């Protein structure tokens, strides 16, 4: 009940004309950014961070949350109308959204996607309110040993789940990110590492220029490299935007299950909205009575994908707020933004700012409401947005990348970092290296480095506490198991009993 009262109080705090106005434009901008292929939620949040430097912390965080929620939802627009996901999060949406649009049911598909996204975010918010406080309390008992394994766990799991082809490339991306974090002054003895006499490198590589490069400039390059899609313009006279309550009620189990799957995927460090959508979609197809319709324009498939990806947003904020470990790439930027605005995410958040989790949850509710309003009313306007040619859009995006990078600390060096990360990021993406572990590596590098050396100092060089403390031991088991399961022979042996049981059941 206290959590509910806190949430109610936080919602009251946000009900000022100025905050609501800021929430409205930020959500709308987020939807536009998300709907344009080539502009992702992470890029939107990173660029928006630069606009919030002069705002007070509540307004700034509200604007960023609205941008995040709006962009993840906005990706469904181009997935449905163009068959090109506006953000990777909407890849699963296009499987059923585009066939529906081709059949003249684009409006209804967008209505379902909007409702699914809103319900997914709401399920995630409930989980955020329930899980975040006890997690923060549990994390208060974490020492250097546990934080070291938490960082390793984040990199390994993110590398494994986000890799397109082989987990090896995910691990490599994570190690490269950690190596970038080794540049500059280290956190224990303030010794400068790998600066090669360049004074600009003494402070290390900042996260925002690296992320704007890897997600902004690299996306501009990818968008110009790729060819555009074909806009689905067929219109059925019976098409409507407002979903029928009967359809929502029929898929209630899918909605709740997808919301829970999305939230838990969000909690896993560095595993973003796209995995949430795919996992929910796969679970829905497996249990659906109309599984044969999946991929041909299934309402249930569309709902599962959109509910799943939107639930990742609140889910990814759970570890971001309580452990300072991002659940997705966008929440990595949010962590950087929180620090800029004087809020220190981590286990101490419940002691330093006990109302913060309620405030973030209230912000998510406000963003969801605006998303629902814009999503159900501005369907036609968003179709027009998708007609903006890249020749006009991309230079504007790149100018924003430059301004955003420079604005952080007024250093020309950061612009060079952004360009370098963009060029390298483009090549790595083309070679199927995921960007999420790389970013996670940059953000967790300092934590991993300090925790390992501090832990070893505390144990006088003894490695045993890293394996014998209860939480550390659990992390070790999960990490070792997940790595070993990549080896085909081990996987076959581990899954043999399950296959045997399956055969026995079928017989």
């Amino acid at each position, binding site marked *: 009940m206290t959590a509910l009262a806190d949430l109610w109080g936080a919602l009251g705090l946000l009900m000022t004309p100025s905050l609501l106005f800021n929430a409205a434009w930020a959500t709308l901008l987020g939807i536009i950014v998300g709907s344009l292929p080539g502009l992702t939620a992470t890029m939107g949040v990173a660029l928006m961070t*630069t*606009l919030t*430097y*002069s705002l007070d912390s509540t307004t700034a965080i509200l604007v960023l949350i609205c941008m995040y929620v709006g962009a993840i939802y906005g990706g469904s627009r181009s997935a449905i109308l163009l068959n090109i996901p506006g953000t990777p999060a909407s890849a699963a949406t296009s499987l059923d959204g585009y066939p529906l649009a081709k059949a003249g049911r684009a409006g209804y598909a967008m209505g379902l996607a909007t409702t699914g996204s809103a319900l997914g975010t709401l399920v995630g918010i409930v989980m955020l309110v329930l899980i975040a406080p006890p997690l923060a309390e549990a994390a208060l008992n974490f020492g250097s040993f546990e934080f070291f394994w938490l960082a390793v766990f984040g990199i390994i799991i993110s590398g494994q789940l986000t890799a397109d*082809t*082989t987990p*090896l*490339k995910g*691990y*490599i991306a994570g*190690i490269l990110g*950690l*190596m970038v974090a*080794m540049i500059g002054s*280290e956190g*224990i*003895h303030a*010794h400068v*590492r*790998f600066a090669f006499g360049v004074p600009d490198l003494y402070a290390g590589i900042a996260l925002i220029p690296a992320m704007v490069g890897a997600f902004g*400039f690299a996306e*501009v*390059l990818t968008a*110009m*490299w*790729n*060819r555009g899609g074909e806009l689905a313009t067929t219109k059925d006279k019976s098409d409507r935007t407002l979903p029928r309550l009967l359809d929502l009620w029929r898929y209630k189990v899918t909605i709740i299950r997808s919301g829970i799957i999305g939230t838990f995927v969000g909690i896993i460090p560095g595993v973003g909205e796209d995995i949430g959508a795919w996992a929910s979609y796969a679970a829905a197809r497996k249990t659906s009575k109309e599984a044969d319709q999946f991929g041909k324009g299934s309402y249930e498939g569309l709902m599962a994908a959109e509910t799943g990806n939107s639930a990742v947003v609140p889910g990814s904020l759970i570890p971001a707020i309580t452990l300072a470990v991002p659940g997705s790439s966008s929440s990595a930027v949010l962590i950087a933004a929180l620090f800029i605005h004087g809020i220190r995410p981590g286990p101490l958040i419940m002691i330093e700012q006990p109302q913060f989790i309620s405030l973030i949850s209230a912000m998510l509710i406000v963003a969801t409401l605006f998303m629902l309003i814009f999503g159900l009313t501005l369907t036609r306007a968003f179709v027009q947005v998708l007609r903006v*040619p*890249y*020749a*006009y859009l*991309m*230079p*504007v995006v*790149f*100018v*924003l990348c*430059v*301004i955003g990078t*420079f*604005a952080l600390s*007024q250093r*020309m060096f950061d*612009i*060079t970092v*952004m*360009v370098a990360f*963009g*060029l390298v990021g483009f090549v790595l993406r*083309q*070679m*199927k290296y995921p960007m999420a572990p790389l970013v996670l590596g940059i953000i967790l590098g300092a934590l*991993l*480095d300090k925790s*390992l*050396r501090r832990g*070893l*100092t505390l144990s*006088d*060089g003894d490695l045993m506490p890293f394996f014998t403390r209860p939480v550390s031991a659990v992390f070790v088991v999960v990490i070792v198991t997940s790595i070993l399961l990549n080896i085909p022979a081990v996987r076959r042996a581990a899954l043999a009993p399950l296959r045997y049981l399956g055969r026995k059941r079928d017989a």
Partner: protein
Amino acid sequence: MRMAQADRVTAVVLLMLGLAMLAGGWTMERLEFRRIHPASIPGLVPMILGGLLALCAVLLWHSARPDAAGRTTARQTAPFLTGGSWSRLALTAALAVVYAIGLIGWLPFTAATFAFVFAFAAVFSWPGGAGRWRAQIKTLLSALVLGVCVAFGTALLFEHLFLVRLP
């Protein structure tokens, strides 16, 4: 180029990077004069990361090879950097690099931004073919308007509304 070839080249680069990091960590100052604990030397984690990257590079090289029977997988034969437009990519990269590293800081922000946006919009929406001068003038005018709007619009928005200093 096939993904297997690209992976082999990357494996060599990553191996060299990993070994360099390992050597860098090994030769890094151990701060003995400050009497720090030997387990907290600054080069410890770079050494581990360098070793792990070198190991991953070897595994990547191995995974890019055909199996004992000479068979290749779909992942190995997947095309790398194909299916897109090289000219559009090269032009985008060149314009962006010239703007961000050359023009910014050398010209005032509005002038540099105008030049970049105008050039980008004009180049990528240029209607080819002889005798299309009407369309070409329209493209130049559109690019001009966009350039002016973005250059002055961003300056106004960021410097005066969001109080952000521009390069």
